[in-house]
């Protein structure tokens, strides 16, 4: 029964094909398939401006730093630069001024005074002896109110005396109980009090 129906259907298909061929239509097999589809919108071209807009773009790390590197950044390396605070055990008290300084180094407080005085003497020597003449004399420095030490005459041969026009600094004296450079004042001015 089914085969008969199938046969009939086949015959009808043939008839239709022949009739259409007679009228000049192409056979149905060659017809184009057409599917109804909504057209998708074309994707826009990607630009970095879409993301950034008015702002600015910063570089950001791409990879995570390793633990070792993070620790070294934080604490430094004991062999090179150690960033932790460690107590110094080589600090001593200066014998003459009482300030602290490192063992093996000159006391900073004393050195400041010596440096200033040295600079002054050097300038004075340069001013007196250093004008492109051959230097043939040793130098002796005398402060205000000082006399030449008693020496035989031969000692003074080939020596130049540089006079510093001020009193010898107290710390630069041989006797620490010598008079202070400050003279006792005789003025009877009284400083005003309760001004403010």
């Amino acid at each position, binding site marked *: 029964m089914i085969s008969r129906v199938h046969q009939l259907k086949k015959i009808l298909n043939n008839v239709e094909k022949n009739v259409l061929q007679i009228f000049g239509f192409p056979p149905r097999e060659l017809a184009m398939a057409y599917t109804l589809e909504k057209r998708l919108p074309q994707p826009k071209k990607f630009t970095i401006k879409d993301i950034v807009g008015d702002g600015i773009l910063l570089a950001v790390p791409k990879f995570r730093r390793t633990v070792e590197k993070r620790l070294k950044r934080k604490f430094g390396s004991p062999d090179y630069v150690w960033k932790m605070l460690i107590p110094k055990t080589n600090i001593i008290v200066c014998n003459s001024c009482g300030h602290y300084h490192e063992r093996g180094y000159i006391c900073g407080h004393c050195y400041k005074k010596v440096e200033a005085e*040295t600079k002054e003497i050097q300038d004075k020597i340069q001013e007196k002896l250093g004008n492109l003449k051959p230097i043939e004399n040793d130098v002796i420095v005398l402060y205000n109110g000082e006399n030449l030490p008693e020496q035989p005459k031969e000692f003074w041969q080939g020596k130049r005396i540089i006079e510093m026009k001020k009193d010898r600094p107290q710390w630069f004296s041989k006797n*620490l109980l010598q008079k202070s450079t400050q003279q006792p004042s005789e003025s009877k001015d009284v400083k005003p009090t309760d001004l403010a």
Partner: protein
Amino acid sequence: MNQADVTKLVSKLRIKVPDQHRRLRSPKGPEGRLDKLRKTVTGLIKFERIELNHHRADEARQYAERLISEAILHGDCHKPTMEIADYWLLEKELLHKLFKVLVPRFENSNTAFTKMYKAPKASSGRNIDKAILELRGNPYPLLTNKHSNNRYLLQNVLLDAAKYEYRQAKYAEMADKIGKNEEISQPKSDDVAKSKPINEV
């Protein structure tokens, strides 16, 4: 054995000389290094006390020592020595100073001619070590405290006073003891004295 005594031909430095020289980097290379050192040696002879980086000071010190010892050894009539001095001293008036001032000053010394100290460090920051380089016998104030043996140093004055007080206290104690001993011994003698008269009576 007609050999010359080598120690008298070559000046032996009185400071410790490291086995390798420092490079003192400079764009000119070794020549630039020597230029730097010449400047430093000239400055040292001129000012007698300078402060500079430790490495350069230590390096220049050796050359300055050598220069002075050569000058002492040969004097100013020796041509090679004069040439060396002429090379190392950039300011020519210092040639006179070397032979007329420094040679007499150091002739009879048996220590080094220069002294080097470590300059105080800045308390913070990573700083290069500085040094103070000076010629001995300069007219400037001393860099180190040499008063520790001075009778008038404050610490010594205080210590002396403390010692004196302690001694006085000890003397007083001893005097007390002697007095007490006498008091103890005296009553016995008194008894004897008293007893005697009684006997006599």
